C-alpha cells in the first residue's frame, strides 16, 4: 500500500489533498464534513477584519455542454467574526488532530498581523497562509494582490509574521505578475517556510449582451474578478514549475489551480508541488470528489511502484528545459489509422486552413472518406491529432534519421542557424506552399 502522507514544510496531513482557502473552507461544519469525506487538510477561508460581500458574486465560462470550465468571483475574505472562526478551528482540531488546519490571514498593520497570528495559533492551527493573492476588492484597500505584486512589501510583512509565528508560514502568491519567481524569492527572503500558488487571475468573464454589463452583474455594474477552475491549470502548472526550478526559491510548494481529479494533482506534484489545494472543483461537485482523487492517486503510485509522495514530487522537472535545448533533429509525422477513422475530415480542414496543407482528401468518386497525410508537407505540428475526435486515430510517428540530437544552441555554436532575412538555412526553406491565387474559389 503506498503511503499518501504529505508533508509541507512540517505541516503533516494524511494525504496531499487540501481544501483551498475559499467558500468550501468557510466554516467548521464544512471542514468537518470534508475531513470526514477524506480530505487531508484545509486552509480556512481567509480571516481578518470581516467584510461585506456583494450579490451576485460569481461568473462562469461554459464550453459546449460543459459547465464551469472557467470560474470567477468577486468575493472578499471572510464575512464572519473572528471569534466564531477561532472557536470552530479549535473544535475541528479536537476531532481531527492529524489533519492539517491552516489559517489563511489578511490584515494590514504589523500589530494586527501579530495579534491574528497569536489568535489562530492559540486556536490550534498547524500553519498559517498569508493571502497576498486576492486580485479584486481587497487589493483596492492595499491588501491581497497589492502586496503580492510588490515583492519588497511582501517580504516585510512575511518578516512581521515570522517575528511571532511558531507554526510554519506559507505565502500564497498571485499570478497577476510578470515573473512569479520575484515574489517567491521575496517570500523566501522574508523567512517563509513554503509558498502556495496560484491565487486567481484578474478577469472579466463575459458581457451580458442585452444589458451591456460584464458578469457577474451587481445592480447594473460589474468589476474585474479572479479566474480559476479547469481552464487555469496550464498557467498554474507553469508558475509552479518556475518556482520549483528556481534555485533561489528553495522552499516547498503547495500547488493550486485547476485541480479537479487525481491526474491534475499528480501533474502539479510532478512539477514540484508537495501537496495540492482545491477550490472550484469542490464548489462544483462537492467534497465527494476526493474519493476519486484518493483512489486514483493510490492506483497511480501502485502502478509506478512509488512508495511515498516524495518518490515523484518534481519528477518531471528535469524534463522541462528551455526551447534552445530542444532537439531540432527530432521529427514526427502524422499517421492516420484508416480502420479507426470516421471520415469527419476535421483533420483535413485544420491542416489545410490552419497548418501546412499536408492532408489530402480522397479523390472524387472514391467511396472512402479517409484523408491521407502528404508526408513531404507534414511538419509534425500535432494539430490534426489534437482535432481528431477518435482516440488514437492519428498518431505521430517518429521519422527522423537518428542523427542528432542537435539543438538551437548547437546550431548557433556551429553557425548553422539562419541569420539573414532570406537565409537559405531557414526551416521552412523549400517547403511546398501553393500559390496565393490557388486559394480563390475554394471557400
Amino acid at each position, binding site marked *: 500500500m503506498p503511503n499518501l502522507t504529505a508533508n509541507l514544510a512540517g505541516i503533516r496531513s494524511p494525504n496531499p489533498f487540501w481544501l483551498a482557502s475559499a467558500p468550501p473552507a468557510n466554516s467548521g461544519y464544512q471542514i468537518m464534513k470534508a475531513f470526514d469525506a477524506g480530505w487531508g487538510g484545509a486552509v480556512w477561508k481567509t480571516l481578518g477584519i470581516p467584510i461585506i460581500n456583494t450579490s451576485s458574486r460569481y461568473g462562469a465560462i461554459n464550453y*459546449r*455542454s460543459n459547465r464551469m470550465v472557467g470560474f470567477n468571483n468577486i468575493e472578499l475574505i471572510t464575512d464572519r467574526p473572528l471569534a466564531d472562526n477561532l472557536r470552530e478551528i479549535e473544535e475541528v482540531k479536537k476531532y481531527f488532530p492529524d489533519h492539517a488546519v491552516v489559517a489563511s490571514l489578511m490584515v494590514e498593520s504589523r500589530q494586527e498581523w501579530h495579534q491574528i497570528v497569536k489568535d489562530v495559533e492559540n486556536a490550534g492551527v498547524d500553519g498559517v497562509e498569508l493571502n497576498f493573492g486576492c486580485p479584486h476588492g481587497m487589493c483596492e484597500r492595499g491588501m491581497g494582490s497589492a502586496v503580492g505584486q510588490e515583492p519588497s512589501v511582501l517580504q516585510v510583512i512575511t518578516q512581521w509574521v515570522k517575528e511571532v509565528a511558531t507554526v510554519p508560514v506559507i505565502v500564497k502568491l498571485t499570478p497577476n505578475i510578470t515573473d512569479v519567481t520575484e515574489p517567491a524569492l521575496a517570500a523566501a527572503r522574508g523567512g517563509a517556510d513554503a509558498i502556495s500558488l496560484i491565487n486567481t487571475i484578474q478577469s472579466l468573464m463575459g458581457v451580458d449582451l442585452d444589458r451591456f454589463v460584464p458578469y457577474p452583474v451587481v445592480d447594473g455594474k460589474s468589476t474585474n474578478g479572479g479566474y480559476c477552475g479547469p481552464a487555469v491549470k496550464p498557467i498554474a502548472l507553469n508558475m509552479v514549475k518556475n518556482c520549483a526550478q528556481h534555485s533561489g526559491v528553495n522552499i516547498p510548494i503547495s500547488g493550486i489551480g485547476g485541480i479537479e481529479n487525481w491526474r491534475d494533482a499528480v501533474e502539479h506534484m510532478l512539477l514540484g508541488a508537495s501537496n495540492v489545494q482545491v477550490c472550484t472543483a469542490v464548489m462544483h461537485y462537492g467534497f465527494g470528489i476526493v474519493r476519486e482523487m484518493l483512489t486514483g492517486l493510490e492506483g497511480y503510485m501502485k502502478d509506478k511502484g512509488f512508495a511515498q509522495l516524495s518518490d515523484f514530487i518534481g519528477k518531471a522537472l528535469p524534463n522541462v528545459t528551455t526551447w534552445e535545448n530542444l532537439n531540432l533533429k527530432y521529427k514526427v509525422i502524422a499517421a492516420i489509422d484508416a480502420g479507426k477513422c470516421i471520415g469527419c475530415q476535421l483533420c483535413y480542414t485544420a491542416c489545410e486552413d490552419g497548418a501546412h496543407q499536408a492532408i489530402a482528401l480522397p479523390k472524387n468518386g472514391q467511396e472512402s472518406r479517409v484523408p491521407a497525410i502528404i508526408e513531404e508537407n507534414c511538419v509534425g505540428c500535432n494539430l490534426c491529432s489534437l482535432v481528431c475526435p477518435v482516440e488514437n486515430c492519428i498518431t505521430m510517428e517518429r521519422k527522423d534519421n537518428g542523427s542528432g540530437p542537435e539543438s538551437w544552441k548547437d546550431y548557433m555554436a556551429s553557425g548553422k542557424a539562419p541569420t539573414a532575412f532570406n537565409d537559405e538555412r531557414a526551416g521552412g526553406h523549400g517547403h511546398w506552399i501553393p500559390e496565393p491565387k490557388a486559394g480563390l474559389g475554394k471557400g
Partner: protein
Amino acid sequence: MAEYTAPTTEKDLENRFGQIKPYMNPTMAYYESSRCLFCYDAPCVKACPTSIDIPLFIRQIHTGNLDGAARTIYDSNYFGNICGKVCPTEVLCEGACVYNLQEVKPIEIGRLQSFATSRAIERNRKLYEPAPPNGHKVAVIGAGPASISCACELRMRGYEVDIFEARNHPSGLALYGCAPYKVTNNDVLGEINYLQEQFQFKIHYNHPIESKEQIAALERDYGAILLGVGLGHTQPLNIEGEKLDNCIGATEFIEQVKLVPLSVEVGRRVIVIGGGNTAMDAASESARLGAEAVTLAYRRSKEEMKAYAFEYDLARSAGVMGLFNAAPLAILGTEKVQGVRFIKTHSEGGKVMPLPGSEFEVACDMVILATGQSKRSDFLGLIDSLEKDARGCIKVHPGSFQTSHPKYFAAGDAVNGGAEVVNAAAEGKMAARGIDSFISNSK
C-alpha cells in the same frame, strides 16, 4: 390481450399515437447540439435530399441563434419542421452521421431540426419576405409538399402564385398519409400556415382541376403551370373478393385514421397485404387502434420488403406479426370479409414462384390492401403531349423539372412515383428555379 385497446377519447388517441420523435426541450437541444463535430464536407449534408447545412444549423442552435438556425433550414427546405419529424432520418442524414462509424449514437438531426423550426413557428418569426411583384403569374395544381415548396420559392422571386387544390386542406399526403405518431395534424397545418403568412401564395381550396376547359384557362392566364398532383387511390390487386365490405385500400384507411381517428372501425383480426412503408404504417395504425391481431402478409421474403427495417421494427413493437412468402389468391367472404386464401411462394432470380398445392386460409374480419397508389392518368390525359415513363410517372428534365410540354413543370410523387416529403420539397424548389429560367428566358 393485444398491445392496445380501441381508443374512445382524445386522451386515448394521444396515448396511442405518442410522438416517436417528440420535440426537444432547450436543455436537450443544448446538449445534443454540443456533440456535433462540425465535419468538413459533412456526410449528413450529402445524405439530405435538400442539402440542409446541418453542422451550421446545429452550431447556431448551440450558440442560442435560433432564428439563424431556422433560416439555415428553411433556406434549403421549406418543410423544416415536418421533415424533421417524418423523414426516414435513419437512412438519410442520421444514417450518414460519422458517429455511426464509431458505434456512437448519431446526432439526432431530425429532432434538432424540428426544435429550431418549431420555435420559429411558435414565436411566429418572420424570416422571409417575398420579392416585389415581377409581373408574372404561375399556376400550381395540388397543394402538397412539392407544390407549396415550389410556391414559396417562386414568391421569393416575385411571381404571383395561385394554387388549386381539390380538397379543403393543404399539404397533401403529409396530412392525409404520414403516420400520426410521427407528426400531428397541428404540426403539419401549423407549418403551412406559417409559410403562407410569410410567402403569401394563394390557395384555392375545393378547386379540383378536372376538365379540358379549366386546363385551357390556366394555360391562357398563367406563364407556367406546376403539376404537383401526387398519386391517386390504392391500386386493386385484381383478385376475387376485393369489393367485399371491410376490404379497404391502405391510403384510404390511413386517411380516415388521420382525419376521423375516433370513428375508424378497425377489425378484430386484420390482414395487411403488402411489403412497403405504407403497409407498415397501416399495420401499425390498426394495431394501435385496438385490433387484436394484425398480420402483415407479403408475397416475398422479409429481406425483400421495400419497407425500411426500422419501420418493420416499429410495426412489430405495436404487436404486428409478419407472414412472409405468402401471396394472396382470394379474399374470402359473402358480404363482409371473412378471411384470405394464400399460396406459399419462393423467389427464383427475383421472381415470385408459387409452390403448387400449398394453399392455406387465414381468417380475418378486415383486409387492408397496401399494394401501391395508382397514377393520376385521367387527369394527366387532359394535358396535350405530356410524356410519361413506363410506370406512368410524368417525364421531366432532371435539372429544370420541365415536362415535354414546355409550359408544364412537375415535381413530387407524380414524378418520382412515390418517395418522401423531403424529395417532394427538394423537387418543388428545383422546379421553381426551372420555371423562373423558363419565364425569364422567354421574355
